[in-house]
């Protein structure tokens, strides 16, 4: 009962959304006019491309996030056995953290953690 239940939850979730969408599609009133399909922008017709201006700020955080995500995933198994293994585990993680702390410090000093 593990992988199977996952599928189950997947299906139940999909079913909930799908059923509701189909139901609403058939039951809800429907009327169209040209304005309705246009993008909403405070009641003024949208001009220009709907496109966020290139903004490296968001992206840098995504990179740093990914790196730290990898890191945190590697710490999880360590955390589980930390209590049992004791000193060795502690030393290893101190080294691991030290290296990553350098990374964080670098990103900090470099201004990658400053949103702009």
């Amino acid at each position, binding site marked *: 009962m593990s992988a199977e239940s996952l599928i189950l939850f997947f299906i139940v979730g999909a079913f909930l959304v799908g059923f509701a969408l189909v139901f609403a599609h058939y039951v809800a009133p429907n009327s169209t006019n040209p304005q309705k399909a246009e993008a909403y922008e405070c009641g003024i017709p949208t001009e220009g491309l709907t496109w966020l201006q*290139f903004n*490296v700020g968001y*992206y840098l955080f995504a*990179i740093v996030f*990914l*790196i730290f*995500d*990898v890191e945190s995933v*590697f710490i999880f198994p360590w955390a589980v056995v930390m209590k049992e293994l004791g000193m060795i585990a502690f030393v290893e993680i101190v080294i691991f953290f030290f290296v990553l702390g350098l990374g964080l410090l670098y990103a900090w000093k470099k201004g990658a953690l400053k949103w702009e």
Partner: protein
Amino acid sequence: MFEGVPLHWFLITGTIMFFVGIYGFLVRKNLITILMSIELILNSVNINFVAFNKILYSDRLEGMFFTIFIIAVAAAEASVAIAIILNIYRRLVNIDVEKMNEMKY
């Protein structure tokens, strides 16, 4: 056999995925889609590793650890690759490999 699923099945799935990735790698011109094709290729390899580990050597963990490290390396690779792609985009307003004949970084 893993409770009814033969190893061949996994390998064939992995192979198809691998060659789909190769196809995308060859055909696609957008750098990001090329990167996605590479991820497909890596993923197919992972499936093979894991299937071998589970079905042939289920008392060992090498396949799994390899996969884990592959994923970690893939993450590092993706972050650097996308940094490069965005840099190219910023310079050339384009991320099409064929239009990047001037490497003026």
